[in-house]
């Protein structure tokens, strides 16, 4: 046995002779050396596992997580990415300081360790349970008594949370959910969780739960204003972008409103490496952003006017590289892949012509299926109009004609498209084109060469899109009209014209435009624009984006490696898409799921629609007489009515009751029920809930929020959320007394406050949302669960693995929703609830034949008698869905039989999956419990769910990929399977991706190819393999012919100024001291990802340790504010108090408050509200744009997170002044 000496004994060595060496310079030191083990163990760990961070930074970096003595000690970058190939820089190192500090959270004071509930609510609940025979009645006794309900609703956000037992809270949530389903309808329980790709199984857990319950899921991409509507408008694709390594393939990169090193930190090295190779980098940014440091040229543009720069660059490119000297590469690209050669009808407008819509096969008298959806071009070879293959009509008549070969669909003759009628025109027509700037909205009279066609015996003029575009951009073609004589001519859209709007020198714009195009000429399209949130969060960001994206299409850069657009704003490509979609929408059991566009939901639910001030007529085109409506909400009602946008809650009564009524009226089939609903709607016996959004039967009741920080981080119009949705103390300084009144919506003078009965939040952080929630459930962190993550920045699928078991009482999202489902099932069994059927309405969906519902882009409103209401054509599709609440848990934890028995697919193609479904059963095992799920694959554990998703997706299972390509081959009559054949035998397993990242398999779910180790670039399969774009022409769109696009003057790219919003109308608070009005922007933070990491101590130490607002030094001097002083920043939407950061980096007239600076510390009060000074979203609110509501029309049809109103919040001004007294409100 080892003898252990006592410390004192070891210390007493005075008598022992000292061993010395080197002339007494050194000695031997006696004593204990155990302390050295600390250093020896420094790099010893219990285990090291691979995981990643499920935060919506788009990073999806692979990390090693180190565990020591059962504690997560730190994380380090993984360094084993597969190579990018010869002559290419590698992916690693990936990971940034934010991710490297994550482990702080696990043991931080912010961690939610137990289920929490507001004490006032819990006491009410316990008392009610004692006094009532069942939980439903107990809940009714609380919620139907406004005094009791207000007791806890008004306490939201004010603490008073206590620990609760899991069983108790799940029962409460189940009671509230089932009560709502019975009383108001299943669509009054709503779920919100963003960006599935960042942790897709955790997202799917709740989404699956909501779908099985019949509750709608809210979209986030559009709500976050990260969705660029220009992408669906131009390509019919949500967003598809190159992986970051493809930047290296470019030889000319513009970073436009994108701050690469700050927001794309792990990928920024590719931009540096590209520069070393010789790539030129141009920065377009109002401030001296970090990305500007990378730039050879800086276009310092006035914020929000980027569209003007892009229009002027387009002017130069069209003039020099098309009109004056047509580049062969550009011309052939334009003819084959864009709608330039397509022919547009003109109609009489105000004194002159205006562009109307495409000339379709039907107009030409060609008899054919879908002839209203087959636009034409002029064939030079035959001197006649021809219908090319690849149009939307050919997509859905399934005759194998849907491809981009320039062949006449009917005659099968080769087409040599006429791009311009100039020289063979019948006439030069003056065409009115709308123009907008900060001062005026007027008409430009442009000259266009036109051809004459007889349609139904009537003389009609037509023009090519190319000719219209040249006219629109103001190119002088020597045919008269208002056009630019030179670049110094101050007419739209010349470089001189933009200079007075943007402040960028005309010479610089001209130079960059020339370089950008010439580079594309020299490299066949390797010119790239990295676009970002800086130009994407504006009201009119879609017009900015269209002007910018037009540049890459004009120079043939799209669909080329190293070229095209690159938009990395909150999107994150969900790679294993089909498997995930099935799990997340519970399609394996029944369908359809209710998927709702988030912005419209919040617009009505938070009452923001009540405060509209800018009439629509001040935004529409001068070419139209007047807009359809003056109030934006009216457009949303129209959109719901015509099946354009989803609308949940749908009807003014319970969908279950509507079903019962239909049956009582003798309806049997779904079709009959649909017709019954249509009739009821027409007779106004049934109404849409959003026609009266403030009626108690119309608004949502329970909101589940997970993986999100909705309140205070993404909740634009924060104070409106507090007032209307939550009914608690708020700082709203606005009133709706003199706001615009809608036509289609019932106005109630009494507005409901505290609409939500329960706000349920799953999180591991006590963040803003949790603080305002009624029930908080402790979620596992990213180092405590199994999950999957993917991104558009790289082509890998990363696993999450638990480094430690979930500590305290936390559980993974997957397991929490299992608990909630169990609560529902148990309560339903207790109440002996029979299965119910509900009438469900869904919008006309993109990538289904429904996108051909409403031809010619004409708006026909059945409620105005313009047509009949026909489900799935002129109004939403009507379905009947059965829900069995007793079986929610069984269904949640098993993969239902529909996968093997129903058509399976994505993006309008489908195939069968029987074989794969069987294989899943044998791989992960089946349920054996004689429930409804007996014999189905068992996904009780999240890990098995991951495995199933990998096996059921075309990007991760080679066999499925080949099936998918075969399905697309049938549709297109092209040869495509070779794109995946070389990897047909591969099927990703969870173990494999845990061992090392694997590049996904090329699949038609996306538009690029990874074949043979190629770097991913979007639309390369469209360009190289002739797969059509999913648009009306099948080509990339410069021209959008929907009536509403004309109404807003956006049929072609144009410039639109930012909205003119004053901080206050009347009734502004008293002026105190010096004040300044600035445009209020909320860009990304350098020291956090949204609210995540902001409150972590390592990050807080890096900058000021609390909320800040950046100001220009001269603006600050004007109001006597010095660096680090407290300031008040406010407008009628609310107040935020923060410290000033005074910097020369920020241009004048702008204030930056990095968004989502969580307010756990440094929150003094403000006299303006007598409350703590808000969040970064307090001075914001959303403005919905009617063109985002268009539906039922080709690429402008609804898709979840694909199209819909954006929650933009930049067109706002605030007053900033020094905070008089810093009052911490501490007593």
């Amino acid at each position, binding site marked *: 046995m080892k003898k252990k000496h006592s410390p004192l004994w070891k210390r007493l060595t005075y008598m022992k002779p000292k061993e010395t060496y080197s002339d007494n310079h050194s*000695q031997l030191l006696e004593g204990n050396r155990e302390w050295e083990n600390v250093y020896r163990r420094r790099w010893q760990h219990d285990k090291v596992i691979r995981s990643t961070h499920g935060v919506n930074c788009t990073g999806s970096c692979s990390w090693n997580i180190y565990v020591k003595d059962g504690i997560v000690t730190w994380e380090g970058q993984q360094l084993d990415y597969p190579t990018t190939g010869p002559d290419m820089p590698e992916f690693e190192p990936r990971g940034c300081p934010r991710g490297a500090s994550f482990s702080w959270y696990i043991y931080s004071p912010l961690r939610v360790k137990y289920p929490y509930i507001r004490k006032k609510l819990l006491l009410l609940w316990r008392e009610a349970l004692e006094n009532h025979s069942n939980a439903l009645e107990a809940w009714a006794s609380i919620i139907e008594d406004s005094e009791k309900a207000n007791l806890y609703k008004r306490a939201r956000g004010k603490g008073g949370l206590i620990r609760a037992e899991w069983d108790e809270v799940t029962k409460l949530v189940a009671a509230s959910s089932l009560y709502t389903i019975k009383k108001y309808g299943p669509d009054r329980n709503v779920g919100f969780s963003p960006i599935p790709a960042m942790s897709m199984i955790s997202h799917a857990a709740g989404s699956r739960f909501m779908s099985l319950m019949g509750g709608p899921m809210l979209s986030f991409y559009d709500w976050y204003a990260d969705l660029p509507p220009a992408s669906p408008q131009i390509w019919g694709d949500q967003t598809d972008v190159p992986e970051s390594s493809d930047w290296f393939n470019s030889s000319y990169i513009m970073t436009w409103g994108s701050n690469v090193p700050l927001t794309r930190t792990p990928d920024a090295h590719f931009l540096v490496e590209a520069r070393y190779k010789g790539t030129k980098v141009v920065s377009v940014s109002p401030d001296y952003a970090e990305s500007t440091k990378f730039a050879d040229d800086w276009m310092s543009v006035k914020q929000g006017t980027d569209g003007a720069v892009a229009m002027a660059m387009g002017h130069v490119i069209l003039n020099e590289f098309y009109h004056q000297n047509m580049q062969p590469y550009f011309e052939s690209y334009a003819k084959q892949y864009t709608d330039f050669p397509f022919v547009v009808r003109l109609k009489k407008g105000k004194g002159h012509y205006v562009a109307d819509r495409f000339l379709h096969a039907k107009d030409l008298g060609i008899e054919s299926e879908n002839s209203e959806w087959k636009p034409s071009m002029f064939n030079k070879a035959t001197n006649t109009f021809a219908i090319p293959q690849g149009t939307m009509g050919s997509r859905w008549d399934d005759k194998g004609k849907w491809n981009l070969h320039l062949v006449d669909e009917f005659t099968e003759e080769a087409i040599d498209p006429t791009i311009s009628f100039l020289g063979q025109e019948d006439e030069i027509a003056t065409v009115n084109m709308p123009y907008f700037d900060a001062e005026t909205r007027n008409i430009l009279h442009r000259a266009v060469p036109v051809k004459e066609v007889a349609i139904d015996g009537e003389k009609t003029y037509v023009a090519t899109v190319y000719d219209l575009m040249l006219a629109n951009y103001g190119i002088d073609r020597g045919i008269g009209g208002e056009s630019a004589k030179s670049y110094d001519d101050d007419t739209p859209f010349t470089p001189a014209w933009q200079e007075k709007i943007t402040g960028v020198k005309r010479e610089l714009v001209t130079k960059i435009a020339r370089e950008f195009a010439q580079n594309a000429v020299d490299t066949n399209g390797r010119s790239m624009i990295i676009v970002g949130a800086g130009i994407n969060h504006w009201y009119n960001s879609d017009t900015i984006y269209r002007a910018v994206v037009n540049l890459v299409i004009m120079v043939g850069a799209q669909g080329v490696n190293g070229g095209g657009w690159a938009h990395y704003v909150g999107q994150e490509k969900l790679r294993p898409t089909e498997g995930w979609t099935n799990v997340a929408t519970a399609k394996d059991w029944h369908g359809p799921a209710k998927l709702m566009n988030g912005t419209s939901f919040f617009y009505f639910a938070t009452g923001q629609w009540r405060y509209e001030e800018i009439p629509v007529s001040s935004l529409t085109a001068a070419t139209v007489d007047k807009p359809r409506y003056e109030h934006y909400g009216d457009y949303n009602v129209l959109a719901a009515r015509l099946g354009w946008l989803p609308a949940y809650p749908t009807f003014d009564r319970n969908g279950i009751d509507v079903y019962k009524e239909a049956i009582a009226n003798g309806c049997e089939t779904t079709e009959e029920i649909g017709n019954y609903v249509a009739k009821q709607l027409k007779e106004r016996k049934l109404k849409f809930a959003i026609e009266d959004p403030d009626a108690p039967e119309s608004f949502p009741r329970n909101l589940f929020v997970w993986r999100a920080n909705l309140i205070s981080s993404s909740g634009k119009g924060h104070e409106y959320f507090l007032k209307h949705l939550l009914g608690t103390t708020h700082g709203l300084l606005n009133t709706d007394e003199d706001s615009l009144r809608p036509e289609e919506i019932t106005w109630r003078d009494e507005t409901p406050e505290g609409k939500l009965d329960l706000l349920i939040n799953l999180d591991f952080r006590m963040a803003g949302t949790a603080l305002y929630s009624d029930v908080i459930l402790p979620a596992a962190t990213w180092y405590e669960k199994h999950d999957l993550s993917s991104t558009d920045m790289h082509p890998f699928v990363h696993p999450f693995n638990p480094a430690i078991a979930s500590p305290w009482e936390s559980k993974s999202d997957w397991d929490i929703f299992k608990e909630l489902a169990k609560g529902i099932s148990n309560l339903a069994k207790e109440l002996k609830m029979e299965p119910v059927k509900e009438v469900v309405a869904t919008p006309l969906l993109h990538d289904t034949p429904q996108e051909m519902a409403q031809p010619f882009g004409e708006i026909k409103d059945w409620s105005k008698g313009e047509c009949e209401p026909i489900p799935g054509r002129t109004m939403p599709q009507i379905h009947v869905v059965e829900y069995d609440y007793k079986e929610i848990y069984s269904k949640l934890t098993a993969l239902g039989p529909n996968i093997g028995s129903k058509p399976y697919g994505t993006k309008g193609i489908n195939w069968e999956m029987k074989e794969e479904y069987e294989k899943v059963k044998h791989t992960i095992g089946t349920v054996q419990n004689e429930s409804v799920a007996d014999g189905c694959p068992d996904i009780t554990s999240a890990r098995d769910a991951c495995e199933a998703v990998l096996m059921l997706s075309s990007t991760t299972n080679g066999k499925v990929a080949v099936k998918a390509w075969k399905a697309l081959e049938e549709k297109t009559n092209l040869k495509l399977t070779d794109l995946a054949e070389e990897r047909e035998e591969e099927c990703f397993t969870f173990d494999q991706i845990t061992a090392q990242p694997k590049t996904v398999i090329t699949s038609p779910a996306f538009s690029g190819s990874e074949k043979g180790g190629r770097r991913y670039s979007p639309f390369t399969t469209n360009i190289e393999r002739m797969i059509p774009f999913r648009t009306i022409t099948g080509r990339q769109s410069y021209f959008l012919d929907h009536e509403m696009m004309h109404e807003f003057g956006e049929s072609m790219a144009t410039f639109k100024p930012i909205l003119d919003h004053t901080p206050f109308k009347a009734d502004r608070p008293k002026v105190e001291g010096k004040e300044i009005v600035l445009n209020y922007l909320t860009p990304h933070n350098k020291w956090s990802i949204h609210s995540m990491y902001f409150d972590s101590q390592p990050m807080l130490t890096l900058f000021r340790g609390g909320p800040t607002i950046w100001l220009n030094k001269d603006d600050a001097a004007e109001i006597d504010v010095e660096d680090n002083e407290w300031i008040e920043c406010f407008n009628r939407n609310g107040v935020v108090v923060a410290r000033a950061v005074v910097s020369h980096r920020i241009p004048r007239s702008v204030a930056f408050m990095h968004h989502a600076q969580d307010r756990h510390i440094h929150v003094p009060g403000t006299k303006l509200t007598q409350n703590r000074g808000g969040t970064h979203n307090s001075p914001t609110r959303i403005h919905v744009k009617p063109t985002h509501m268009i539906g039922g029309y080709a690429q402008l049809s609804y898709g979840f997170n694909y199209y819909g109103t954006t929650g933009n919040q930049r067109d706002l001004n605030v007053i900033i002044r020094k905070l008089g007294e810093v009052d911490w409100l501490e007593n």
Partner: protein
Amino acid sequence: MNLIDLLLWGIFPYIVLTIFIGGHIYRYQRDQFGWSTKSSEFLDKKSIRIGSQLFHWGILIVFGGHFLGLIVPVELYNSLGISQHTYHTVALVFGIPAGIAAFVGLILLYYRRLTVKRVKATSSKGDWAVLFFLLIVIGSGLSATFANIDAHEFDYRTTIAPWLRGLFVFQVQPELMTGVPVWFKFHITAFYGIAVVWPFTRLVHVFSLPLRYMRRNYVVYRSRTRKA
């Protein structure tokens, strides 16, 4: 001489000494990491500066004075020809300022511990006990000194000093203490108190002066741990 005198001056000293020595050994063996001054300087730097300096320098001089007065025998002074008067004057000239410095320093430190939020929040019972006893000990010591300023009737070098030295050689002479003025008695008794809590508080840092460092060679090696 009564029983109380015997207890106070004959028995208590040995109990106190046992706890003092035994306590230190115990603490050293069991609480290596806790052997510390428990510095609160990083919680608050400003308010500690003057108080700590005054107290520490003051107490060091006071300690030196006690050594010269109590351990060094009066015979040595006599043999050197230093008169009672000279000794006493020198002792007072150095002792009173040092004592006042230590006392004022202590008051400042006490005040700091009471008013600085973070220091107060992190104070243990031991920290309060140390302050309390130091206050009593120094207060009573100063009082005794002032009460004995003319020193006509009483010389501690012939009473307290031989009594104290006797304790260490086990010649217990409690009778020497019977005539000592009450302030001195109080001072000594108070010291018993501090000596008892001493090993269990931050006062152990008194014995942590890195003296061995002074005679250490420039370069040190350590041998491999020998396997048993």
